[in-house]
């Protein structure tokens, strides 16, 4: 589909949903990461991702005539456009957490590169801004990939987790962007059959649990202002 034919909602809602949910997942390490530096790092990354979700929801809300909180919290899990990759609840497995972090941030970089070239100036400008911040997330992820590779156990657990999550990461991107991700990660693309069950629109049971928790206050006091 040509970009002109796509609404901002169609283009940006999947990304906003990914950023909100991955931000939430990252925040699950707050207070229980392996050491204090990582409590700080994952909390800060979560704050950035949720900040990105918020401005993306604002752009979409403007088009749809709604508000960003309604988009974030009032849609049922089945309506979420987030990718299964971000839905996975990975605490307390640090190896799988770092594998997702690395794959998500790399896939997000591929997606942002494409958005920066958008003909919609507001979208291109915002993507450039987001990408500057994401550069720090990528550095953090790459630092951890290198660090885990320093021991046999770390390398084995990380590789097993990347093997497991690689199809999820590919399915997160639109088909035309997938080869660029395969090149950056240095892996072959999985079969279409494997990818089909991991596409957006699939809501895993753990997303339902996350939504229950994430929207609890909103549901208790729907008109509450904070």
């Amino acid at each position: 589909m040509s970009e002109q034919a796509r609404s901002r909602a169609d283009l940006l809602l999947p990304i906003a949903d990914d950023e909100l949910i991955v931000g939430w997942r990252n925040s699950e390490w707050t207070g229980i990461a392996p050491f204090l530096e990582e409590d700080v790092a994952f909390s800060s990354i979560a704050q950035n991702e949720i900040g990105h979700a918020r401005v993306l929801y604002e752009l979409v809300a403007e088009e749809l005539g709604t508000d960003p909180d309604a988009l974030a919290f009032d849609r049922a899990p089945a309506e979420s456009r987030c990718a299964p990759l971000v839905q996975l609840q990975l605490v307390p497995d640090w190896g799988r957490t770092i594998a997702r972090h690395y794959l998500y941030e790399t896939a997000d970089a591929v997606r942002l590169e494409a958005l920066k070239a958008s003909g919609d100036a507001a979208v291109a400008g915002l993507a450039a801004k987001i990408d500057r911040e994401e550069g720090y997330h990528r550095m953090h992820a790459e630092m951890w990939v290198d660090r885990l590779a320093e021991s046999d156990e770390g390398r084995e657990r990380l590789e097993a987790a990347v093997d497991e999550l690689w199809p999820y990461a590919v399915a997160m991107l639109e088909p035309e962007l997938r080869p660029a991700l395969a090149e950056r990660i240095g892996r072959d693309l999985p079969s279409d059959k494997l990818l089909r069950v991991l596409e957006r629109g699939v809501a895993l049971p753990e997303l339902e649990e996350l939504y229950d928790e994430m929207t609890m206050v909103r549901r208790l006091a729907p008109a509450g202002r904070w």
Partner: protein
Amino acid sequence: MVTTEQAWAAVAEVADPEIPVVSLVEMGVIRDVQVDGGRVHIELVPTFLGCPALDAMRRELAAKVAELGAKADIELILDDSWSTDRITPAGREKLREAGFAPPVPRSEGETTLVQLSSGVFRCPYCGSTDTRLENIFGPTPCRSLRYCNGCRQPFEQFKTL
């Protein structure tokens, strides 16, 4: 009738909510101020999009403009036009005096881990460049944590953006 000069002067009084030693103007987050009758239009560019201080900035800007008897109309600019390079020389000096190492200039291309690990970062307390990266992330989105081997003091380094 409010003049543009008066409006800028009022805006310049607003301190950064997280680091009150510097003003929003010194942080470079005020891109433009225009007066149109009784309305003052302010272009505010966030540092990081998830910055929790944004709402406080908007509130304080609106309050300062209200003191002039005008109404603030604050536009949040969501593009890549803010960079840490926009922090003014005076702002950088005030940050340093308050114990925050100012950001190094934005270079061509993306900041890399190698730059963060081996670049020259000066301790704001003793001036030593014998410092090391402790954590890419810090207490707020805009800062990293470093440690000075010279004076054995941890310090906060502004991220280059």
